[in-house]
């Protein structure tokens, strides 16, 4: 252990020495300000005035990497940032970016990490990779790492949907990271404003059904493909467990002596809403008792919940409290109405047309005369 430590320290010393001129230079803010946006001229200047050549810059990279390995993430992040401003090699700068992202994630600077993530994404999308395969791999990594960021950043759930639903990334998921579907599914379910992506998601899930399955995707499948509510209910129950045990999802929040998993509760709430909505769509008359059972609530809660929904004008229904049922309002226009509606415009339009023709004819006539 001691030996190892000595070795590590020795190495660190060595690397530090190698990178010393550059670090010294960088620690001098006045000098740093001199640097301009143009990399080439910067390098030239460095070389002329401070005797800092490519070797030193390379040493900086190694040093930063070593720092990272030693656990000094903030140092590593700083150095990598500076390295990036100086480096010309695009591969290296990519790995520097990865390093920076890793450091930020490990330091839990989510805002910065998100920034880094976006930067990295841009680089990956725009860069020419030697083979499409490596690009795909990079994308897959990026998505995995992004889980850290997205499930910890407050706006992450929106961003994750945006990222994952981008076609290229969706392709990447389908080809070699099916398990990411789970996170995508959860993000979609939780996110109330993102209902329209649900359809796409269900499609993807169905497509990948033969390779990947977990309670969450199965839940969606039960609900939106098979309309099997019993099973969906059951899956929902399993989902709760899965979420609790998931590293990214099962984040616990402590309130006093209560330990809750906020994400799970949110998920369950939204899922319940989903079930109810779908249920209502195909029913005319629903027994509240049964509904309560389906939604894992007791009778009064369910009733209150429905009333709230109705009051918020999200549901066109009435409660028959005597029978204990919810009656859906139906609004269907009759065939007559439809036909009338579609032909209503015809007479006006043809009138206009006829007028136009007459006018035009008159004009030409007048012209001829």
């Amino acid at each position, binding site marked *: 252990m001691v030996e190892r430590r000595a070795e590590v320290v020795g190495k660190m010393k060595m690397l530090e020495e190698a990178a010393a001129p550059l670090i010294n230079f960088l620690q001098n803010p006045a000098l740093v300000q001199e640097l301009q946006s143009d990399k080439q001229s910067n390098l030239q200047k460095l070389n002329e005035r401070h005797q800092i050549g490519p070797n030193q810059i390379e040493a900086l990279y190694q040093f930063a990497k070593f720092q990272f390995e030693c656990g000094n993430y903030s140092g590593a992040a700083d150095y990598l940032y500076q390295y990036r401003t100086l480096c010309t090699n695009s591969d290296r700068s990519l790995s520097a970016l990865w390093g920076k992202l890793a450091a930020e994630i490990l330091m839990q600077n989510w805002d910065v990490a998100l920034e880094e993530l976006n930067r990295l994404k841009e680089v990956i999308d725009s860069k020419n990779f030697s*083979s*499409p*395969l490596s*690009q*795909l791999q990079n994308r897959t990594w990026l998505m995995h790492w992004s889980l850290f960021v997205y499930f910890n950043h407050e706006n992450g759930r929106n961003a994750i949907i945006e990222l994952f639903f981008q*076609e*290229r990334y*969706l*392709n*990447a998921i*389908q*080809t*070699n990271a099916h398990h990411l579907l789970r996170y995508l599914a959860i993000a979609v379910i939780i996110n109330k404003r993102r*209902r*329209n992506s*649900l*359809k796409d998601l269900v*499609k993807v899930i*169905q*497509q990948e059904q033969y*390779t990947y399955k977990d309670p969450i995707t199965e839940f969606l499948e039960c609900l939106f493909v*098979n*309309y*099997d509510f*019993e*099973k969906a209910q059951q899956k929902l129950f399993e989902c709760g467990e899965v979420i609790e045990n998931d590293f990214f999802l099962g984040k616990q929040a402590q309130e006093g002596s209560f330990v809750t998993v906020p994400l799970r509760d949110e998920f369950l709430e939204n899922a319940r809403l989903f079930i109810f*909505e*779908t249920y*209502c*769509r*195909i*029913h*005319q*008359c*629903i*027994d509240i008792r049964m509904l309560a059972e389906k939604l894992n609530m007791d009778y009064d809660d369910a009733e209150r919940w429905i009333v709230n929904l109705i009051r918020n004008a*999200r549901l*066109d229904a009435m409660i028959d409290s005597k*029978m204990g*049922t919810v009656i*859906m*309002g*139906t*609004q*269907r*226009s*009759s*065939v007559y109405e*439809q036909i009338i509606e*579609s*032909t209503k*415009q*015809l007479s*006006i*339009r*043809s009138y*206009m*047309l006829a007028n*136009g*023709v007459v006018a035009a004819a008159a004009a030409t006539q007048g012209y001829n005369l």
Partner: protein
Amino acid sequence: MASRFWTQGGDSETEEEESDLEYEVQAGAKEGGQDVGNGSKYLRSDSDSEDSDDQKRVVRSAKDKRFDEMVHTVEQVKNSMKINDWVSIEENYDKLNKQLEKVFRVTESEVVPRVYIKALVMLEDFLAQALANKDAKKKMSPSNAKALNYMKQKLKKNNKQYEVEIEKFRENPESEVEEDKDSEMMDQSETESEAGYSDEEPDKIIGFSDSDAGDEEPEGGDGPWEKQKTRKEKIMDKQFAKDPSEISWEMVDKKVKEIIAARGRKGTDRAEQIEQLTYLLRVAKTPAQKLEVLMHVVSAQFDVNLSLNTHMPINVWKKSVQNVLSMLDILAQYPNIVLEDAMDPEMENESQKGADYDGPIHIWGNIVAFLERIDDEFFKSLQFIDPHTKDYVERLRDEPLFMVLAQNVQDYLERIGDMKAAARVALRRLEHVYYKPQAVYEAMRMQSRSVTTGENIDDGDSELDDEDRQMTKFSSDMKGPPAFVSVLEIVPRQPSFPELSRTLMDQLLSLIYRVGDERTKPRAMLCDIYYHAVSEEFHTARDLLLMSHLQDSVQHMDISTQILFNRAMAQLGLCAFRASLISEAHSCLSELYAGGRVKELLAQGVQQSRYYEKTPEQEKLERRRQMPFHMHINLELLEAVHLVSAMLLEVPNMAASALDPKKKVISKNFRRLIESSEKLAFIGPPENVRDHVMAATRALSRGDAEKAIEVIQSLDVWKLLPKKDHVLKMLKGKIQEEALRTYLFTYSPYYDALSLDQLIKMFTLSESQVHSIVSKMIVAEELHASWDQPTRCIVTHNVEPTRLQALAAQFAEKLTVLMDSNEKAYEAYTGGSLDGPPAGRRKESQDYASVTTGRWQGELSTAQGKQSSYSRYGSTGQRSLFNVGRTSQSRVGGTGGYKDLRSTQGNVRGGTTYSSTFQSTRYQDAYSSVGRTPYQSGSSVRGGQTDASGRMVSLTRSGRF
């Protein structure tokens, strides 16, 4: 035979060679020939040459006299030649021949006098000259010209007999006229007599008698000539046999060249050539030469059968396999020998270098071409052998033999680093494996093992080793040195198949994907797809197919690849069916059945077309493309699968859109069948697959699931399925579900409410199934109803328009279209739009426009009428429901709602319809990730709109060549 032994006791080598000859070549003519041969001996050889040696000198004087006569005649011939008098030439020529006979009689031997030969040569030259000079020929008097023609024929016939002598004479006209005449005569007399005894073929005797009589029979001519050649060959043989050590490399080389030069010429006996070459093989001096000769042997063996339409004899095939194997032996033993396709002519003496020569030796040859030819011949023989005979099975047993060969060739090619060729060979091997399910593969493996072990034990009469054994026998019989270059059997003769066919496939595939070329890769891919489909891995197969974009590129490939593609598609369809993916199965198979030319598309038999006559060439071409029987996909099964899946999709579809004239047709083919079966006055009990399915369709469209199931299950073809029970169970479930759907479509307008329990009972489905199906239909707006949960009922809303209403709606819609186009016309005419219309109407008219243009544009048009009316539901009624997500969309207006609905509808109806762009881009991006198909990065995107829908390849293009 016995007689020959007797006469030629001393000359065992030649004897052996000869018997070899007969054994190999004249196997067919043997029995008949021998009798006649024996007879002929007594008949003709009154002067038996046994004692010719002793008698020769005694009759010298008489002989001289005859000779003088001949010389005189020859002089006369010369004279008449000078004046170009063909009539007298002919006369003298006949005279000469008579004199020759006399000479023979006197000398009691058949030695041809040199004078005679000289005269023949002279005549021949002169004749050629005369024939070449066309003008002179025209000027000739009729009698003269006639005589010339006679002479031409006679000379041709006669000269054949003395070809050897003539050639010899030509080679050295002056020398050896007198030079050691005796010994030569001895030699020749021996040969002659030998030839006399070996006269075995009847046609030969005819030939002999003909040559003098000048008969016109054409077949007669071949006999003696052939025999002459063998005689010549025998001289060579004898020379070799006498003095094996004297045979030099040059001699062999010369002889090989000679034989090769004769190759392909008309009238060359190919079997004969092989014999000669095989013999030369034994005396080849260096390994390189041996290899060279082997090359020639194999190509000569290929020549045995010239016609493209028949296959090579099987024993010849086997021998050529053995020969190629021994080539590989040589190549393995002497790694410095290099086979080259294109070689400089000046390097042709490379094979002189001995076995101990270190540098590279270049030999002309292409072992891959041999292998491919062997494979082609194997394939062809399977095409031609009647599949119901034992021969066919026997022939199939030879497959492992080929596999060994291919494996060895591939190993060799990999060793020398010719990966391109190795990939080609790998593909050949692949094509022998890909269609075999594991069980069949296992059988082949076991069988090949048992064959080889059995051979090793009895070491006897298996045909495969026949030649080798003969060779060794000969060499030991010869008591001389055995073959100069003995080559150990290095290359394994036993096939080594991996346990699982998948392993073998993977090995081959990875090689091909790595180094294959434009043709091998797609073929390998198709084989892979086929194999996956056979082994029940539908998704893998489908992904492979879609990722490789083969549907796009296959159109540009050669016909056999297209056939392979069609086969793969058919198999994929069957696989999808077994995996109960009905719509996938249907989309795979429907195109195959679209043109009614399944047999042609799969190359499983020639289909007669009523409308279109094929030329014989086309038919021949088609026959050549046929698949051997053991590779066939059962057509009945295929048809059953196709029709049943079409039925399951089409019947509810028909019920759903019974009133809609613009109904979406899923399977045109199936619709046609239904129509024709509806026309029948009487419907008999079902006989074939089609009848069965039609009967089931009738039952199903009434919602009578039980009957339908019963009819479908009574089909015989199901027993061809590997998991019959499973599939039938699946089918039963599917039919029940579709019957329920059909029932609901057809009868729901007549009910106010339907009880869930009753439906369960009617279709014997579980509650959750019924619930799920009905819910799906409700959500997809196929069924205008909703559940009434407390009473377990489906309450129908009866918004489904009556016939009158539907027609009225259609009419209204047509009016709008008319209106719209009027306005457009007006705008186009006046150049400006109407100014008056209120803004709201403008917007709406755009909506309409989008609807109408959509109709004219896409395939979706068929469903448009119905959907556009839906879109109005969508924007009015539906919005007020729980469109939490949709409100934003319906604000856009009718089109937005329409889109939304369309996708739902498509989704449910198609089972798993994927949106096309989605799918295609996915695979475009994905192809690279798998890394298997990097070659089509540029190909255009065409996603399956239903997932594995590939386009069937039509063969008409090829048919019109």
